[in-house]
């Protein structure tokens, strides 16, 4: 029969018309990014960090600027740790280089800033603030990842 394919296509679109929609209402519902997502800013754990400088050396763009000092017990520690996210390639080399897993991505994808200097993140200060606050992370009510949802279907 001529036109069978056309009717088939119309059947498909009509089915889609009444189907569940895939859209997530973004500002209200935010996806948690998967484990291997590279993005956002670097998150430093200043307790784990041994100030070896491997991350800064591994970085192809010299995005990480760190200065180290030695205290009276001959132990190196961080004095400053700057991360220029505006120049970052998100190549993950720094995180692979770190021997103690002290840095990771914060997996935030809302990275736009109004001014250029806001792109330079002082990771050490943030880490110190965090450890001072020492809050237990509460799991926020977020939508599951669509990929896992599709797998369940």
């Amino acid at each position, binding site marked *: 029969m001529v036109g069978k394919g*056309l009717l088939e*296509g*119309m059947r*498909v*679109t*009509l089915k*889609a*018309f*009444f*189907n*569940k*929609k*895939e*859209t997530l*209402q973004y500002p209200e519902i935010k996806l948690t990014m998967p484990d291997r997502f590279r993005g956002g800013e670097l998150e430093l754990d200043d307790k784990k960090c041994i100030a070896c400088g491997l991350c800064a050396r591994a970085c192809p763009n010299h995005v990480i600027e760190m200065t180290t000092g030695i205290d009276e017990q001959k132990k190196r520690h961080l004095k400053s740790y700057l991360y220029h996210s505006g120049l970052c390639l998100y190549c993950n080399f720094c995180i692979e280089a770190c021997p103690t897993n002290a840095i990771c991505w914060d997996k935030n994808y809302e990275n736009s800033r109004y001014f250029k200097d806001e792109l330079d993140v002082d990771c050490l200060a943030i880490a110190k603030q965090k450890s001072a606050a020492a809050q237990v992370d509460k799991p926020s009510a977020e939508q599951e990842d669509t990929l896992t949802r599709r797998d369940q279907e």
Partner: protein
Amino acid sequence: MQEITGLFKIAEILRDILGRFLPAQLVDICMSLINIGAIFTIISLTAVVLVYTERKVSAFMQRRSGPNRVGPGGTLQSVADMIKLMAKEDIMPAGADKWMWVLAPMLLFIPAALVFVVFPFDNKAIFADLNIGIFYFIAMSSQSVLPFLMAGWASNNKYSLVGGMRTVAQMLSYEVPMVLSILGIVMMSGSMRMSSIVAAQQHTWFILLQPIAFVVYVITATAEINRAPFDLVEGESEIVAGPFTEYTGMRWALFFLAEYANLLAVSAIATTLFLGGWSGPWLPGWIWFFLKVGGMIFLFMWFRWTFPRLRIDQLMSFGWKVLLPLALLNIIVTGIGMYIYEFFS
């Protein structure tokens, strides 16, 4: 004829009220103006509503949720669109044929609006019940070919000119099977008057007696109003947008408005000719009319978001080699069928 109901009754009440203050001739003029205003209101409101509907329908068919931010459920989205269009800069291309360029969008809207003269929205609710109603509709809708060519020519742009010529070729070719598919209806009802055609369908809708004509009419109408899968006029990215490449802001919006007015017009004609017009049980006539028109519009949108676009040579060969013989065959079969029916009754 049935008793006077619905819209015509409202008109009679208005006429009575006006008759108390004004002489008879002025009342007639006032009523004409009110009718014209109502028709224009319908056209512009439909355009606004259809923009929103189109976006929603397309979104739903692609498993998205569509506009839902501006106003409740996104209903004010088209208002926001209009404000955006008004704020856009009006650019005239260098070396354009000025008068033609300015007139084209306006001239395109005029036939789209004039067609509404002969639509029976309800029992007796018709602006002018011409005895050549369908003929008038065909004549008027053919007029919208010219502005496209004008726009294409005046834009001083080769792509626009080619686009305009493509449009003319498409619209002229599809006029022919459209007229021939309508002829079957005229043969069966024995009249070109819209009200008589609706009256002839009180018992059986013509879609049941003329299925081939209906299919041919829907396909040709889709081509006639330049909607997908025949939207060679508009292909924005694949083929440069055709005659209205150079138009911006409100001028472009006029093209758009004309397209949606045409969509409404074609759906209303389909309703009148094939779906029994305003006739229907329980509900008032004009509600039936607009329900059927809404169904037809949904059908056209369904086509648009399902089928891929045709190439121009496929389009032309389909029109001339398939639809035209089909429409002619339909006329022959209708004639023979009518003789057989008369012979046995």
